[in-house]
């Protein structure tokens, strides 16, 4: 029973690590590529380390706590490094798959009304994606909103 559980944890961790690196290879964009390996860190290596902790606690004379040190360290540092990488990519102005925000939407909102500006921008892009002619007709309710 313990062996079955350990095998399940190990295979889960290995599959998540594999999928994380697959995302690193397959995804098109730096910002989307950032998404894959962070999940591989937390879920993949996390479950591998939990499996190792259970194994050495069952085998050895006492409870093994080294793994939780590594787990906690990885759980703390993974978001920090991902945030720094995203900041670097933004600083270097890397090409993104997402569309650039329109200048009008930013100018209308101002610094205090960022949320409403984003909402109108989203509405504008979806409208133009569906029907470019209907965008003008639909701008009146947007203006009343903001």
């Amino acid at each position, binding site marked *: 029973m313990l062996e079955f559980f350990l095998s399940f944890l190990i*295979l889960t961790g290995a599959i998540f690590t594999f999928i994380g*690196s697959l995302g690193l290879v397959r995804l098109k964009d730096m910002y989307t590529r950032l998404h894959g390996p962070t999940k591989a860190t937390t879920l993949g290596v996390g479950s591998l380390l939990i499996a190792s902790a259970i194994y050495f606690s069952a085998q050895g004379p006492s409870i093994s706590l080294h793994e939780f040190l590594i787990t906690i360290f990885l759980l703390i540092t993974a978001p920090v490094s991902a945030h720094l990488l995203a900041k670097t990519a933004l600083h270097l102005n890397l090409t993104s798959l997402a569309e650039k925000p329109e200048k009008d939407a930013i100018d209308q909102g101002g610094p205090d009304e960022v949320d409403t500006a984003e909402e109108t921008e989203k509405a504008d892009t979806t409208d133009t994606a569906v029907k470019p002619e209907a965008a003008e007709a639909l701008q009146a309710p947007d203006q009343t909103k903001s």
Partner: protein
Amino acid sequence: MLAISIQIALALVTAAVAMSFWRLLRGPDAPDRILALDTLYINTIAILVLFGIHLGSALFFEAALLIALMGFIGTVALCKYLLRGDIIE
């Protein structure tokens, strides 16, 4: 059963290392390469933990902990260099 699953897991993690190495060589920009290095050290931790279970030795955790510390410091240093042009200001 545990031995077989460890071997499958080692094969999967080795494939992951190969793929992140491909991204390290190919990556169009510098942040892609930093991300590939970050993924490489995390995959190395996974391989070390798997080897620790496979060989039944608890010696590998210190190595894994050191790799985690040094890898994080390396990622932060490279990002700071690209962000600010300097590491320690």
